[in-house]
């Protein structure tokens, strides 16, 4: 586990997957270079040299390549990792192409081929008993082993966060047992359980109702000056944050997907209490230098 009091400035990976929440057209205009692992790894390293102290990423082939490249350059030791699972885009794309059952079969094949005995045993139990918790644990063992083998033993895997689509769907369905099982399992593994959400207020209320200990978890949720993706409203998200003094909330979408300039974004973030850190994606070297220097000056 990491130094609990340290503020986190994390490099986000959205640009490396060709994502722009401002506009899809903008993501296409950026071109392919940004999605090449070598270029992306350089951006992460530049960000680390200018104030960032960690990397938040969805577990995919490209981000695992980035981790391998950073390890080869000896940069893993100072890197603190916040992994988001699953890489929802890829799974949604597969569901679109081959359906839910087709995806399940594909995934079972991947686990079997991986040779990860613990994951295979847990997965068999999950399938035979139709046990979602066992299946979730299977998946987590598999993904964590992929991260560790790519990042190397030197890297610090601070937290594994459930992707927003899983967090928010489980919230919508009141799956308190799933959240509790996830928290317990991750704590057993010595990794901070985390949750990415676009429904911060809803999550905060539910977790209080279910007595989930905020001190033991990480939450990644949008916080930005224009209220972008702050549901149900900017005002209510700010109030909920102020009422969770003990938690480890990481602000995402801080630039509102490029709608805001880093300076105005950081001025807003300074006004928020109780933030554990912020996550920002960068797509150019100069942007990486300027953004993280600025954030370090203003937020740490």
């Amino acid at each position, binding site marked *: 586990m990491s130094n609990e009091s340290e503020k986190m400035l994390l490099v986000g990976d959205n640009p490396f997957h060709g994502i722009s929440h401002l506009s899809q*057209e903008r993501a296409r205009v950026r071109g392919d270079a940004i999605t090449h692992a070598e270029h992306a790894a350089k951006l992460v390293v530049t960000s680390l040299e200018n104030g960032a102290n960690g990397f938040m990423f969805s577990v995919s082939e490209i981000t695992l390549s980035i981790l391998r490249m950073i390890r080869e350059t000896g940069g893993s030791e100072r890197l603190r990792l916040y992994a988001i699972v699953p890489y929802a885009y890829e799974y*949604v794309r597969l569901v679109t*192409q081959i359906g839910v059952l087709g995806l399940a079969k594909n995934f079972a094949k991947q686990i079997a081929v991986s040779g990860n005995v613990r994951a295979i045993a847990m997965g068999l139990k999950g399938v035979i008993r139709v046990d979602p918790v066992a299946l979730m644990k299977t998946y987590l063992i598999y993904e964590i082993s992929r991260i560790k083998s790519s990042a190397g033993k030197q890297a610090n895997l601070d937290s594994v966060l459930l992707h927003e689509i899983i967090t928010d*769907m489980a919230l919508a*369905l009141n799956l308190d047992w799933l959240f509790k099982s996830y928290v317990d399992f991750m704590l057993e593994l010595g990794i901070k359980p985390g949750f990415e959400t676009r*429904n911060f207020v*809803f999550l905060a209320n539910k977790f209080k109702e279910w007595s989930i200990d905020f001190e033991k978890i990480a939450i990644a949720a949008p916080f930005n000056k224009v209220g972008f993706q702050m549901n*149900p409203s900017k005002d209510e998200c700010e109030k909920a944050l102020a009422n969770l003094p003990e938690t480890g909330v990481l602000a995402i979408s801080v630039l509102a997907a490029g709608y805001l300039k880093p300076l105005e974004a950081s001025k807003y973030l300074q006004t928020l209490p109780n933030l554990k850190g912020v996550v920002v994606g960068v797509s150019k070297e100069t942007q990486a230098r300027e953004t993280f220097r600025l954030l370090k000056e203003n937020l740490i």
Partner: protein
Amino acid sequence: MKILGRESLRVAVVGLGKMGILHASILNTLPDVQLTALCDKSAMIRRFCKRVFEGVHLVGDVEELSDLRLDAIYVTTPISSHFLVIKTIYSKGIARNVFVEKTLASSYDKAKELCALAQSFGGVNMVGYQRRLNVSFMKAKDLLTQGTIGEVASFNGYAYSSDLLGSRKNSKTSVFRGGVLRDLGAHVVDLALWFFGDLTVDSARLESATKRDFEDSVYFRVKGSDGLEGEFNISWCMENYRLPEFGLLIKGSKGIMRVDEDKVELKLDNGKSSMWYRHDLNDNVDFLLGAPEFSREDQYFVKSVLEGCNAEPSFCTASKVDYIIDQVEHGSG
């Protein structure tokens, strides 16, 4: 609060693919809704859902929903099954209010039959063209209604994705999804009908990149009232479209408007220009899952049922999309 004589609206979802699970989840967050039952043919999916959707009836056939006193049903099965599922819902009196994911049916004839059934049974009916509830497209509709770009002379609509780029020859995917026109193009056709009124197909060209049974790319021209001309480009084999993208370029007597899911851009002949991103258009919702428009859509349908109002696009409105698709498919030669 009593609704239709009960404490809450009893809703079922038929078809537990991606869209079924999405709607079931959002519906479960709505205060006036009781997610009552789920239906899927797959025994494995039902077994898994039994653990996840506690307290919800799980059945394998639509007719098994008969005794559950349902107020509304969401149909999220593949398009080819919409006709039979909806016909069963009405004819067996399972529910009066029906929401179905687009397109309404797999042909205009079947769509017309469903419209007639819906009208005879009453209740609220709606088709899931959720782009109408996207803030950019809503803004564009407002601007058009206000006459901001004057009389519309022409438009160019597109719907692109990379979903089937490089997929295997004779892949079953396009068959499963009913071709690019129904799967992807239907959204932009619906937007054009919403923006400009009735359209008729002038000419069309369909291409199947890998000799599949269904088309992969479609180009067609349409005509509307008062000399309006439009064209559509639709493909799911485009490069660099990580997510599906829909948009229109609209030319009017006073200027041009470009609209897609992320923004609206105006360039007027008098030199004025404006741009609105989602950020500027109050895009927040009570609960966000997938995209804000899905939450708005479910809230809107439920509210319409509760208040006994029509919901748009109704089956009859949406059947016009099936009409255009039929014209394109049958008139392309």
